[in-house]
């Protein structure tokens, strides 16, 4: 545990040092970039000069002494900018950790595109001005490089950093305590929800729907048997014989079994849910069927 704490504190210190370094460097970045850009702007002229010297250059050009050119101060060179570049290089060399701590620069699409477009442009070497104009026409650098956009992006970045710093400044113990009681509340709510599902209280329970009782089921089976018997009797009245199967009658109710016991009698059988059979015997119908006959749909025809 002690080692872990030490590691944590050392990592925190490192983070703080890094943040401080970034904050210190942030205001200085624009001048450095300016110096770099100026240096880059100067480099082509130097390389061009060197290239011209190595190639021999145009035949009628003046001979160039490299040592003399480097030591002397040519016209048009900004001495302040050169000093700034030299100071920046010295600072960078003096602090070796800065280069490592510097975040990896993300790919610059504009710069990459610039190189790519330049490579694809294949403009003749002599027509340098035309090539630059073509590249600038293809790449719209205006909105990206405007000061307003840069200020806005910088403000957003600073706000984001402030937001993250504010979160880091909250003590971990407070965060842990808050999370603890929140998880406790969530657990309690989950338990209550489970109880409501398993044992719903009266106020959360709607009125139960109607259920079929045992007596109603039995009455339904007897009514179905009687109605099916009426279909068989109607068939017998029409054809003067019993049907061979129930398929011959007009309507067949589900689950009824038909058994002929001779040319004049038959049985209709239905099974209850518990397996008990209810039988309608045409030769001797049970009393329960007789009460249905007098009290049900046939009553209008009764004298």
């Amino acid at each position, binding site marked *: 545990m002690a080692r872990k704490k030490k590691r944590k504190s050392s990592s925190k210190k490192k983070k703080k040092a890094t943040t401080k370094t970034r904050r210190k460097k942030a205001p200085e970045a624009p001048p450095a970039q300016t110096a770099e850009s100026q240096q880059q702007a100067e480099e082509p002229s130097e390389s061009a000069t060197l290239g011209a010297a190595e190639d021999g250059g145009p035949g009628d050009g003046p001979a160039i002494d490299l040592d003399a050119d480097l030591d002397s101060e040519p016209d048009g060179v900004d001495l302040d900018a050169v000093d700034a570049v030299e100071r920046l290089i010295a600072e960078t060399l003096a602090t070796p950790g800065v280069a490592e701590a510097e975040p990896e620069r993300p790919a610059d699409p504009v710069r990459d595109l610039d190189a790519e477009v330049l490579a694809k442009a294949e403009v003749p070497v002599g027509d340098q001005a035309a090539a630059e104009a073509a590249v600038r026409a293809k790449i719209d650098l205006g909105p990206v490089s405007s000061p307003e956009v840069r200020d806005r992006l910088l403000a957003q970045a600073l706000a984001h950093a402030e937001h993250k710093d504010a979160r880091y400044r909250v003590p971990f113990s407070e965060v842990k305590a808050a*999370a603890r009681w929140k998880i406790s509340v969530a657990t309690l709510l989950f338990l209550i929800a489970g109880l409501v599902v398993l044992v719903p209280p009266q106020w959360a329970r709607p009125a139960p729907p109607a259920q079929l009782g045992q007596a109603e089921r039995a009455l339904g089976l007897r009514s*179905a048997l009687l109605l099916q018997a009426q279909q068989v009797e109607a068939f017998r009245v029409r054809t003067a014989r019993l049907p061979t199967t129930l398929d011959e009658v007009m309507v067949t*109710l589900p689950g009824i079994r038909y058994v002929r016991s001779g040319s004049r009698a038959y049985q209709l059988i239905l099974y209850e849910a518990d397996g008990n059979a209810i039988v309608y015997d045409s030769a001797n119908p049970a009393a329960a069927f007789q009460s249905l006959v007098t009290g049900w749909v046939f009553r*209008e025809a009764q004298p």
Partner: protein
Amino acid sequence: MSRIWEILRAATLADALVVLAVLVLVTAILSPRLSARAFQERVANAIADVDALGTAALVSRDLRGRWPASTPPGEAPAELSGIGGPGGIFSREGYRLGWESLEVVDSVVAPPEPGPPPAAGDAPRVPESPRMQPVTRMVGAISVHSGEAPLLAELLAHYGSEVSFVVDTLWLLVLPERTAPSATGR
């Protein structure tokens, strides 16, 4: 919108758990009532469909002098094609309606057979007991097919067990001769 986004970004896993727990609790409290309400709506729709079919069948019988022909569940008889078809009352979510024309047998008193005229001096005939004769007649019936037993039980409770019954997944209502089906309900 940005304010909401900031709140969401600042939320932690514990906050999300609390919100989830509240949602689960609300769902656990409300879902039985919502499902019960949906069931009651289904029952009300089924009763309305049965009444509409019974009324249409009675009107058809009065116009044509016979009941519509039987059809399989979910299909409308040709005589009642106006209330069938896609989106009609015969095929609904949770149940299907059917129409049945059933035969029942009545026993009626047969007219006396004319016998030979009594001769003079014969003893008077003993009156015979009335002879019964079976005759068939048609009755209309509405069937509701559903695997939802509580729906069938609700229909049985609404229309009564004197004119309807439940067997297996079928509820059958035998239409009375001269009254609308809803008049027989409780």
